[in-house]
């Protein structure tokens, strides 16, 4: 099944200058009881966005009307903890299309790539600079060029290359789906099973 393609993203950013943001913060467990993929954006960072009585915490950046955009910038080790894909669904549903950090937890990164959300790994120095720039100027824009694997501070600012698995890059650029890919390999999978059974019975 085809998905939204990711090619070039140019947007303002939302800065989250905290390290080790875990998936329990991104979407608390009490909101995981839904059985569809939609609607999780409403509860993204729920306990940081709202206080105990359900009032908006105006100190939190996502409640500051000056900040917005499709790029989330976060401190290192983003997405640690639980494997819940709901964290990625929530970030995507809220409107983000890329997350920039110096370091991502493995399962979160896989989940993001499987849902068209691009995790961009940048050097710590670049991340610090970016965090400072966007925190001080909410109108600061950033461009992410997936084809050329470059993230740039625009206009005319620094840019760095980022790494991405070539297979995953292809999937994102073309809006392809790994399940379709695996389904197209059914014959090889069956052949593998047959050979393995024979070997195990040796």
């Amino acid at each position, binding site marked *: *099944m085809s998905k939204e393609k990711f090619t070039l993203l140019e947007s303002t950013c939302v800065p989250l200058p*905290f*390290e*080790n943001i*875990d998936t*329990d*913060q991104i979407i*608390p*467990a*009490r909101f*995981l*009881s*839904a*059985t*569809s*993929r939609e609607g999780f954006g409403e509860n993204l960072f729920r*306990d940081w966005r709202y206080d*105990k009585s359900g009032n908006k915490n105006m100190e939190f950046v996502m409640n500051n009307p000056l900040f917005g955009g499709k790029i989330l910038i976060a*401190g*290192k*080790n983003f997405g*640690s*903890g*639980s*494997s*819940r*894909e*709901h964290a*990625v669904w929530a970030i995507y549903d809220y409107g983000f299309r890329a997350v920039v950090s110096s*370091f991502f*937890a*493995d*399962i979160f990164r*896989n*989940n993001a790539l*499987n*849902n068209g959300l691009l995790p961009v790994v940048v050097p710590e120095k670049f991340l610090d600079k970016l965090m400072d720039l966007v925190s001080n100027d909410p109108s600061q824009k950033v461009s992410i060029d997936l084809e050329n694997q470059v993230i740039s501070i625009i206009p005319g600012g620094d840019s760095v290359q980022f790494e991405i*698995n*070539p*297979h*995953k890059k292809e999937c994102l650029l073309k809006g392809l789906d*790994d*399940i379709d*890919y*695996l*389904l197209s*390999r*059914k014959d*090889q*999978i069956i052949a*593998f*099973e047959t050979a*393995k059974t024979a070997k195990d019975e040796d």
Partner: protein
Amino acid sequence: MEPKTLFDKIWDSHVVQSVEKGPDILYIDQHFIHEVTSPQAFNGLRKRGIPVFRPERTLATADHNIPTKDQDKPIRNELSRNQVDRLTENCRDFGIEYFGLNHPSNGIVHVIGPELGYTRPGMTIVCGDSHTSTHGAFGAVAFGIGTSEVEMVLATQCILQPKPGKMRISVNGKLGKGVTAKDVIMYIISQISTGGATGYFVEYAGSVIRDLSMEGRMTVCNMSIEMGARGGLIAPDNKTMNYLKDLPSFPLGFDWEALLTQWNSFKSDPGAVFDRELQFDGSLIRPMITYGTNPGMGMAIDDSIPEIGDIKAEDAPSFLKLLDYMGFKPGMKLLGHPVDYVFVGSCTNGRIEDLREFARIVKGRKKAPGVTALIVPGSKAVEKQAISEGINNILQKAGFELRQPGCSSCLAMNEDKIPPGKYAVSTTNRNFEGRQGPGSRTLLASPLVAAAAAITGKLSDPREFIR
């Protein structure tokens, strides 16, 4: 032949095909599912109009959402009930074996897999749950996946996965009195931090690991993800074989000897190269406790929280913010700090040995009046065993109650929530903000530390209570 690590042997023998410049197509021997991370995957199959490819290789249980009291009555929370009902329907419609609520084999997915004999050496095992690493204790390559990947496994029995790096963590020496498997893994994480093993699959080795029981090894492997590791595993040995041999899942006349020969080859060859090697001295480990809001923020129970001067300048603001959430200050000692709740259970410490350890300390003593305790077995089988061993009676006499199995307060998806601002000593795996309920303050620890807190009402050194 080039020497190989155990991880390489298992991984490589399950690669159907390597995608050019991409991940491997990895064949999965055993898939576990539960109610929270599977419904969207089944929706995907329905949308595509395809069946489950190998239904006999998936096993389902309901664990995350379920109450730990009155399990014979309908689940009160409507969303939870709906999610469990959907799993029941999905298993029925797609022909998957299901140990639902009240089934004698029901329990936490990572507790029932091993105890029912589904988890075996040399296997690849996945589940939409990060603590799938638990099964690595049996010498299996086991790791957590997301829901899109659950759908891949249901549809094709395979996932696309880049091969992680290899790390070996050796713990040698001998553990002191009152030091458990939980303290070993909490110590390792405190030394290398919560992202210290990201990108790696860890093999645990050394005399301390070999001396651990199978339950203890599961506790160690369980928390591999808390240092970012893709998974953790331990080479099978006689202890592993004896554990498996006693399980009812091997039918009479089963060719045990042939299996043993195969399993004996499941170890890293001498000279096999790891991308990273770490060594720890087990005799330095003391009973552990966490003081912050990630599992890397741990210390010996009789230590003090680091002073602000010991923290890197750029990390100081977030360090203070985390301590503020916990209501702690830099340099503070935690021994004697009041405790409101004690939770014993979860896929980390909800097995029979954990209940035995807890009972060993509370036996003949009384629960402290101000403490609310939740003692939750990891499975129906653990519950049954605890009753047959009389642990149930010991707990009752000391003022505790054994509840019914489930994930419970570990992630508080059911009613078992810790109220805002309250301190909970918890034998679980994560002390994240709000993990056990909004505003809850979690202190991770072993069942022995939990027992000492439960009878004194404050953080106490369990070594003082071991007879």
